């Protein structure tokens, strides 16, 4: 409870400071779909109760929720969720799902800005807290709300610690890194990077540099695609939220009853003589119960997949289609930029 109060206080403090510093440059955040972190060996997946199809849905659902939390804080500029790393990200957030069983959520989060400064690189773990929010039924009722809030707060604290000059530098370097990915022979000259991956700005091209203007044009075009990708993730999130909420609730109930049963059985001695009918029966019934719990879990997972699969396939198709289009656009623009470069630098 104390932890929750502290988190809320922190959030309020960060938000208040944000408003006070509203003239400061605002940073955009690029979120990469989470790593599923699936063990290769199918037996290890079973031992850890990881169901690949559920994990795949989580890898898209959880960052979608984080995106909503970041947006809701009002602290950031555009939050973009992408299937891959964004080469022009001002702040790139990526994560791996370490544990997600409905009762516990554990994420390894890494956030890094365009200069290579690490904002956070740690494991966030939380146990589910049932909550009901009348004000915000989408965000307020998530059982892991505090985990996401903690991530937002950590990012907010780093943001608050940076000066406006540092924030502007992040924005400039993000633009140049994006430009350097398109035309490395031109734009990598403006940047310097060391072995630790820290970028420093040597100088910035003139504001009316034609190549830079074209790169910015490409970036704007890319945003159009990213917005479409984003919409797909949003549709996916809205589509699976009720199913995923239910799946997590069933899982929590199952885990809690399993824990109760094990504790009860281990604590009490049954009083039956070893080898007697009652003793054999109890031994078998306990095992039977345990196996039926496993089979119940399989059913829950199957029910989840049956309901989520069409939405998942739609997202998969659209991401595939969009990334294909993006790649083509990139190639096309790279060709055009090269031609310009050759024309202007014969």
């Amino acid at each position, binding site marked *: 409870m104390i932890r929750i109060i502290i988190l809320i206080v922190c959030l309020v403090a960060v938000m208040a400071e944000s408003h006070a510093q509203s003239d400061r440059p605002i940073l955009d955040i690029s979120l990469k779909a989470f790593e599923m972190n699936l063990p290769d060996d199918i037996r290890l997946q079973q031992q850890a109760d990881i169901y690949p199809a559920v994990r795949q849905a989580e890898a898209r659902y959880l960052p979608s929720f984080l995106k909503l939390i970041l947006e809701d804080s009002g602290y950031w500029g555009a939050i973009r969720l992408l299937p891959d790393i964004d080469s022009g990200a001002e702040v790139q957030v990526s994560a791996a799902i370490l544990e997600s069983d409905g009762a516990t959520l554990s994420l390894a989060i890494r956030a890094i800005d365009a200069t290579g400064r690490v904002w956070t690189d740690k494991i966030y773990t939380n146990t589910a807290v049932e909550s009901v929010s009348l004000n915000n039924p989408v965000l307020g009722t998530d059982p892991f709300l505090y985990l996401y809030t903690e991530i937002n707060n950590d990012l907010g604290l780093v943001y608050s610690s940076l000066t406006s000059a540092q924030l502007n530098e992040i924005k400039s370097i993000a633009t140049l890194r994006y430009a350097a990915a398109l035309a490395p022979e031109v734009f990598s000259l403006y940047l310097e990077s060391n072995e630790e991956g820290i970028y420093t700005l040597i100088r910035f091209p003139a504001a009316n540099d034609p190549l830079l203007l074209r790169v910015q044009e490409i970036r704007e075009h890319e945003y159009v695609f990213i917005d479409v990708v984003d919409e797909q993730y949003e549709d996916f999130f809205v589509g699976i939220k009720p199913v995923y909420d*239910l*799946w997590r609730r069933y899982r929590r109930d199952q885990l809690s009853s399993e824990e109760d049963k094990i504790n009860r*059985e281990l604590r009490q001695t049954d009083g039956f003589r070893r*080898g007697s*009918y009652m003793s054999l*029966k109890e*031994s*078998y019934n306990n095992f039977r119960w345990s*196996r039926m719990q496993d089979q119940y879990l399989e059913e829950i997972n199957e029910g989840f997949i049956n*309901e989520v699969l069409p939405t998942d396939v739609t997202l998969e198709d659209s991401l595939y289609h969009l990334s294909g289009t993006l790649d083509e656009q990139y190639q096309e623009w790279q060709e055009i930029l090269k031609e310009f470069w050759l024309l202007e630098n014969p």
Partner: protein
Amino acid sequence: MAIHQLLQSSSFQFRHFPCLFVLPVFLLTACATEEPAQLPDETEYEVVDMSGNWEKDFQLSDDFETEFNLYMFDIQRRINPQQDGINRGFGGGGASGSMESIVGLARFTEEITRMPILNIEQDRSRVNIDREDDFALFCEFFNRQNIVTETPFGTEQCGWNREQLLFLLNLTDGLQIYYQVTLSPDSRQLNITTTVTSDQVSTAMTISNYYRRYDVPESNIDCILTLTRNNVCRRVSN
């Protein structure tokens, strides 16, 4: 008639279990002659397709009453090979505890081997034997290794031995259940031999059940399980 009903009938007790009361049963716990079952390590095997709906063939399957008598006779023979023991008096004292174990094992075996209906689903890498009113026996085959499922209440091991599918359950309180599932060469019959062992009884009890295929009438309703709407069904055209 279930075993506990059989045992409650006094006439049944004296007619069928003359030897039961003379066993020096205190020896039973001391002479555990049978080794616990073990699944063979990596063996040559061929996965056979057992999928389908199966119903118990009561004519071919073991009659429990007969098997129980044979079982009791076997126990007596093991303990006291020189004497038939028939005319001995009713043994008392420390015998009752082990008697309880023998009868308990038999009664328990009868209960878990009823399994009147089976539904088997199988593909190239897994088999699921769905049993009415009991948990499904499930096996996945990886690289010819036996698969072990561990729970806080025991372990389930499964694997193939030639064309036989094996399940070995090692449960708490010294209880072991061993299922051997075999398909007949013409694929029309299925046999499940169940061997139940308790560390409190020297002799395991084995029951063999036969099953024959039955057809489930085709339905033009296709249902899938969902979380928010339970079963969602749709009519399919034949």
